[in-house]
């Protein structure tokens, strides 16, 4: 038997996901819908935050949401209270969403009927970082109850995100949240990252963040027109 030899192949392991994500991004662009994904640890207040986002954007925009969860449909039920179209993606044992799941979940929905589409990932700060979902903006959420060094513990997901949202700010005093320390750890893993500090429950800080989303949508449509 001959000696083993090395053959170069250069195959991106996530190529299939990346191809679907690229196709989705192109569809979103063509339909003029701005897509925001949300990642965080379980219990960071993602669903409350998204419910408020959907409710408050609705008077001005057409919004819809896909929600990933391991086993239950509780989140979709909660979000449906906003009256926005919501679809649950139940992942079973899978700890993250993949582009193909988003593609399947979107079947039957007309993207042209939307201004914003939100994709809530499964609560997990590790696995979702590897998968592009075709989104325009990835938000990473951390609540004030989680500790200021969360970004240093999960640098990959914070680095892969575009915007950080610090939630449950109404509890900041009770847990003696050190805002400067949190800001420093976010900036260490993603220098220049935009940070919103808010409370979904009281609504404090929501306005500035919603305004930011409006600007992002307007910007995307401007670019689509000129390209």
């Amino acid at each position: 038997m001959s000696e083993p030899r090395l053959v170069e192949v250069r195959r991106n392991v996530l190529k299939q996901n990346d191809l679907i994500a690229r196709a989705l991004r192109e569809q979103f662009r063509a339909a003029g819908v701005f897509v925001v994904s949300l990642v965080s640890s379980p219990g960071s207040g993602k669903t409350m935050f998204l419910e408020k986002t959907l409710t408050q954007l609705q008077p001005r925009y057409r919004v819809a949401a896909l929600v990933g969860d391991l086993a239950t449909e509780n989140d979709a039920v909660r979000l449906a209270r906003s009256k926005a179209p919501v679809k649950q993606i139940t992942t079973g044992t899978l700890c993250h969403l993949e582009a193909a799941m988003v593609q399947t979940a979107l079947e039957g929905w007309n993207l042209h009927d939307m201004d914003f589409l939100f994709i809530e990932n499964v609560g997990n700060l590790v696995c979702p970082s590897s998968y592009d979902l075709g989104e325009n903006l990835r938000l990473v959420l951390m609540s004030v109850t989680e500790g200021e060094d969360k970004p240093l513990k999960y640098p990959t997901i914070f680095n892969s995100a575009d915007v950080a949202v610090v939630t449950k700010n109404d509890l900041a005093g009770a847990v003696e949240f050190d805002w400067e320390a949190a800001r420093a750890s976010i900036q260490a893993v993603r220098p220049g990252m935009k940070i919103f500090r808010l409370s979904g429950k009281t609504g404090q800080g929501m306005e500035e963040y919603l305004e930011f989303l409006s600007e992002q949508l307007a910007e995307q449509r401007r670019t689509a027109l000129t390209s």
Partner: protein
Amino acid sequence: MHELSIAMSIVDAALEEASRRGVQVTGVHLRLGALSGVVKDALLFSYEVACQDTPLEGTTLIVEDVPVVVFCPQCNDQRTLESVQSFTCPECGTPTIDVRKGKELEVFALEVQE
């Protein structure tokens, strides 16, 4: 943990390349970036599981760790980060998010026997 599904994708990719070339694989070389979101130990364990009952059973996964390389606008050059917890140029301290390497999750070579 998503390493098992990643390991299965690695096995699929390797088998496809092997059958296309008509070769028998004895080892798979993988480039794994520090920002890939994949844990090496979990992946090595998952690889063995993913290979079971496939022609790759008994083969080795050889992982080459790829550190994060950024472009520093101040130095006008590429720099290797010392840690993924600090995206600043190790030479001059300028913050940067211009990542040039470190996201790899790539089967780059197969060890084969003809």
